[in-house]
């Protein structure tokens, strides 16, 4: 008899085809808690048709806040900024 064991409600490293078949078989042969667990896994795996990748992407996510500043804003502030720099010349 096929003996598939899904020990936790997460993605198992088995093909969905196998697991679905095995889980269905197990539903008939196990009772109570097991049945509920297997049913849940079967639904989950069948719905996903594969593994959910929870690994982090290898490239760090770089968020450039500066790109949100539009050129028109810079132009608008240019005159005032120039005055500010002149007024505070000791720190510029």
């Amino acid at each position, binding site marked *: 008899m096929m003996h598939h064991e899904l020990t936790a409600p997460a993605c198992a490293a088995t093909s969905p085809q196998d697991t679905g078949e095995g889980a269905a078989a197990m539903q008939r042969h196990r009772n109570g808690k097991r049945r509920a667990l297997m049913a849940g896994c079967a639904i989950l795996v069948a719905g996903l048709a594969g593994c959910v990748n929870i690994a982090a992407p290898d490239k760090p996510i770089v968020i450039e806040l500066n790109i949100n500043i*539009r050129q028109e*804003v*810079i132009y*608008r502030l240019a005159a005032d*900024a120039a005055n500010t720099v002149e*007024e*505070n010349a*000791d720190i510029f």
Partner: protein
Amino acid sequence: MRKSIGSALAALAVIGAGAVPALAQQRDPAYAAARASGKVGEQSDGYLGIVGNADPSTQRLVDDINIKRRAVYADKAQKNNATLEAYALSAGCTAALRTVAGEKYRAPDGTWQTRTNAAPVRDSRCPSAAAAGNDTGD
């Protein structure tokens, strides 16, 4: 009598107004030295940066100036209905133009450049020197 005193005072005020800002706005000598030797440079985000490895005194100097700059940006940005970052960037555009040959500044790609007599490489959002009314040229 009153007229001549008044006009004399007015003339004095004009001279005073011209002289005082120049005297009051000298850079701190340590800052001026660090700038001249290329240890610190202007960044495109409107703040000072340290070129290469930071030693504690230079770090303190740069932090102090950047804190003061940030305070100014916060105040002015609020008055102009802009974000602090936008104002800082705009000031950075101006500050980059004020570098003299031999000083360091940071190009938009992050690398440190040495200023020559040519225009500095600035963020693409900076207004052109002509548009900004840059009249420090010949």
